[in-house]
């Protein structure tokens, strides 16, 4: 998609976080290379994040993935400073969040960020509507307007009719959607979403993904999105960063990650992806040598679709064309199919 | 008297100064002189007397101000549960309305209750300075009713006074201390002998009437008496009260308790000493026994007196 980044960029620099009673004491040792296990066993401190450097261009969706416990939630909490780092900088726009004083931080959180929490964190004593208006209420927006926005989003996440229910009357997924509506109602340029769709069924999840993408089309927000679902990551993410044990092991565009995983860890990570629907022909085409053969296929078409087109017309070869119809590469059905198949061996599902 | 005869005696140790001293004197004399096994039991007046009436425990209340608790006490004596022993304060307690000495000195014309009631401005009420105040006796004591009736008999209300409830002895004492602190006027019920009067010299006001026993019994002690007349306070009786059971088993010790009496003057001087030294009841008891054999010598037989002296 477009490179037109208008939102607020986030740039995390040399971020370290150590959990424990006296983190400062070990920061140098960690910088010097002490491992997470060593720190935990010898000093009973947990290394949450280690030397994180990520640039998130304004207006893009940055996906963060990684094993459970690898520090994703810890990282996202640093962006609005719900957690104070042990060392490092978190530059949002042109301000360092770490250096903000209390008032600045409050204003920053009010107007710049909105967050969806992994564990929902709804206010149990407030109804769905009251939860949803919370951000605007805090900002002092007139009540009518609060409700107008809130009702729109409640309806958008499919909770019409539940406005006056309390969270403990809702199912897990409904609660998660309240959290979502609450964040979206806030209408902040930065959206922090920590496994925001994890409790949703595929249909509503798709729908919510569309909500996010539509939103990106209108107003360009900077979204930091943690997810475990690679399909979702690929669908939403402009850029993906993968964490492991508190460190970034790879970051880049989604195609880079899927096609050129940096190591075994990441390749096992992306193994399960439905490649036919993620990878576009551009990734597998070979440079044109001579005349374009077979049928033309538009650049950007995913493998699944082009395979179907080619087999439907019984063609073993095709060529890829750009937006103007100019041929830019050659396709071979065999290449297409083998790129669609998960590269490593796997059991045949029963 | 041998140990066997007297046995275990419990003596109420009530918590105002003179009673405390007397209880400690009894403690020493009964222990050393009569070989009793004395235990001092602390307690407020009413819990102590209730316990004596109903449970026969403690055995002795050295100093009971009869007026304050007349109704239940008389009933218990009638029922044969309690017995009056000596009138411990021989010349009786003095009750009445008092004013601070500095007011009396500054206003020599104030001699009686009526004189004082003519000057509401001198005795401002705590919650309404435009009125004068008469501080009443603590809640529930007999004197609360009698004082109220005096108040009415003297038409104090029409003279611009209110009757202020003091609640407790501590409250009453506090109000005096407060007046002294500010050198203000104070008019109200009090009694002697007490430690307070040593600390804060006060003048007793005259009564504008002679004691009239009939009117007293029929009206002044009745809270609902329609039309009280002026009267005077009788001498207040202060007795040693013992349980019937103890009176029967005490042997010679009861003779002591029946003869032990002292005067206002003695008590006052003793309390002044006690207060000056912030002494305990025990200290004061020893001080008395060491210095005033002339008084306590008469309460016991010479042999007993010897034993006591030997123990001091």
């Amino acid at each position, binding site marked *: 998609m477009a490179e037109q980044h208008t939102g607020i960029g986030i740039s995390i620099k040399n971020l370290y976080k150590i959990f424990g009673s006296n983190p400062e004491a070990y920061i140098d040792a960690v910088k010097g290379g002490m491992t997470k296990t060593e720190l935990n066993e010898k000093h009973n401190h947990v290394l949450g994040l280690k030397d994180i450097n990520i640039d998130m261009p304004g207006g893009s969706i940055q996906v963060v993935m990684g094993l459970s416990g690898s520090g994703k939630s810890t990282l996202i909490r640093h962006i609005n400073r*719900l957690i104070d780092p042990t060392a490092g900088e978190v530059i949002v726009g042109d301000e360092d969040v770490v250096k903000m004083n209390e008032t600045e931080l409050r204003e920053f*959180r009010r107007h710049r960020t909105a967050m969806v929490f992994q564990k929902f964190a709804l206010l149990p004593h407030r109804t769905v509507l009251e939860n949803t208006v919370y*951000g605007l209420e805090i900002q002092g927006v007139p009540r009518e307007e609060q409700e107008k926005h809130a009702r729109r989003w409640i309806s958008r996440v499919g909770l019409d009719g539940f406005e006056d229910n*309390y969270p403990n009357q809702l199912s897990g997924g409904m609660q998660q959607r309240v959290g979502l509506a609450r964040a979206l109602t806030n209408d902040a340029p930065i959206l922090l979403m920590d496994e925001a769709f994890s409790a949703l069924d595929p249909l509503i999840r798709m729908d919510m993904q569309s909500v996010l993408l539509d939103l990106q089309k209108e107003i360009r927000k900077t979204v930091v999105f943690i997810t475990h679902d690679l399909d979702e990551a690929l669908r939403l993410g402009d850029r993906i960063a993968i964490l492991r044990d508190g460190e970034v092991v790879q970051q880049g565009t989604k195609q880079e990650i899927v096609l050129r995983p940096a190591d075994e860890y990441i390749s096992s990570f992306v193994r399960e992806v439905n490649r036919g629907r993620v990878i576009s022909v551009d990734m597998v085409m070979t440079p044109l040598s001579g005349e374009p053969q077979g049928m033309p296929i538009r650049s950007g078409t995913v493998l699944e679709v082009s395979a179907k087109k080619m087999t439907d017309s019984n063609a073993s070869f095709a060529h890829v064309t750009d937006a103007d119809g100019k041929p830019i590469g050659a396709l071979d059905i065999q290449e297409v199919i083998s790129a669609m198949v998960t590269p490593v061996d796997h059991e045949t599902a029963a | 008297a041998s140990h066997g005869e007297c046995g275990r005696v419990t003596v109420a140790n009530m918590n105002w100064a003179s009673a405390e001293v007397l209880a400690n004197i009894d403690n020493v004399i009964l222990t050393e002189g009569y070989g009793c096994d004395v235990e001092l039991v602390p307690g407020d007046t009413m819990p102590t007397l209730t316990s004596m009436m109903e449970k026969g425990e403690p055995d002795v209340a050295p100093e009971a101000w009869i007026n304050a608790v007349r109704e239940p006490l008389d009933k218990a004596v009638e029922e044969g549960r309690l017995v009056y022993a000596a009138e411990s304060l021989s010349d009786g307690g003095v009750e009445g309305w008092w004013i601070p000495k500095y007011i009396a000195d500054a206003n020599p014309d104030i001699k009686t209750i009526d004189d004082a009631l003519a000057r509401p401005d001198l005795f401002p009420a705590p*919650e309404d300075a435009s009125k004068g105040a008469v501080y009443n006796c603590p*809640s529930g004591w007999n004197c609360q009713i009698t004082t109220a009736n005096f108040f009415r008999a003297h038409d104090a209300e029409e003279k611009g006074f209110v009757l202020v409830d003091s609640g407790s002895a501590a409250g009453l004492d*506090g109000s005096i201390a407060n007046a002294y602190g500010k050198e203000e006027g104070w008019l109200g019920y009090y009694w002697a002998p007490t430690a307070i009067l040593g600390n804060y010299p006060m003048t007793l006001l005259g009564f504008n009437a002679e004691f009239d026993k009939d009117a007293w019994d029929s009206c002044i002690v009745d809270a609902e008496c329609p039309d009280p007349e002026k009267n005077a306070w009788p001498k207040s009786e202060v007795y040693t009260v013992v349980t019937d059971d103890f009176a029967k088993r005490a042997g010679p010790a009861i003779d002591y308790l029946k003869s032990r009496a002292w005067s206002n003057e003695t008590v006052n001087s003793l309390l002044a000493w006690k207060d000056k030294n*912030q002494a305990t009841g025990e200290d004061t008891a020893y001080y008395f026994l060491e210095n005033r054999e002339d008084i306590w010598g008469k309460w016991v037989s010479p042999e007993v007196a010897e034993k006591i002296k030997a123990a001091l």
Partner: protein
Amino acid sequence: MEWLTEFPDLGTSTLRNIRLTVDGAFRDFTRAYGESIELLFEPVKWFLINSENFMTDMPWPLILGIVAVLVWIASRSWKITLSSVVVLIVIGLFGMWEDTMKTIAMTFVATVLAIIFGIPIGIGMSRSNRVQSVVNPILDIMQTMPSFVYLIPVIMLFGIGKVPGLIAVIIYAIPPIIRLTNLGIRLVDKDVLEAADAFGSSSWQRLKNVQMPLALPTIMAGINQTIMMALAMVVVASMVGVQGLGQQVLRAINNQYFTLGVLNGLAIVGVAIIFDRASQAYGQRLQRHTEVVHG
């Protein structure tokens, strides 16, 4: 071997001297500053006197009406409102109307003051461990120091009457609300607080929107205890000259009037229950979300 069972103290005369010196100093102090301190409390006194006058001068049907309306506003429950009125009528029938009115006037003022001051202090305590460790021992002193120990100096300053009574009641009644406000706020779920923070709540908004509502059950327990403590002090207050039911209790005690004591005691209990049920029902209304239970 006596030194083993007898603790070696400073010696009678030393102790006596200490006491005499301090007492003297204190007495001088009250004489010097008594009046100015007393002036400070004039407004309180005025307020107390007037609220008592209001309660006793007002025709009783009106008082009943006012109580009913207030209880209704707080509780929105016919049952509670009706029983409050019945309790007052029974009290009246047993001839304790006037004393009860005086007691209500006094304890109402004291309770309200205790709550008004107690909750902010409790909030302050919950914010900072430093404040907590300073305030806690003060509360310990307020609750366990026998009231007469501080009342005597207070009486020396103010004389007997409503002001020392009020002071005694408040000192004794305020600690539970402070402690339980503190506890309630400290127990609020960290996740929810984090969410409030993430939206940029100021500390006041966080307090108002999250901490107080979620601490409410505990705070209401504090209010209940404060009411109980205030009414438990009625007798002590009457010992320093506050009129009302406490005085009748004292009379009963000093004369062994068992029934009179019980009746007046029950009247105090009745007032306590009216205060308590109305305030608890009010608290309950504020936390409707807890009524919903899963399954």
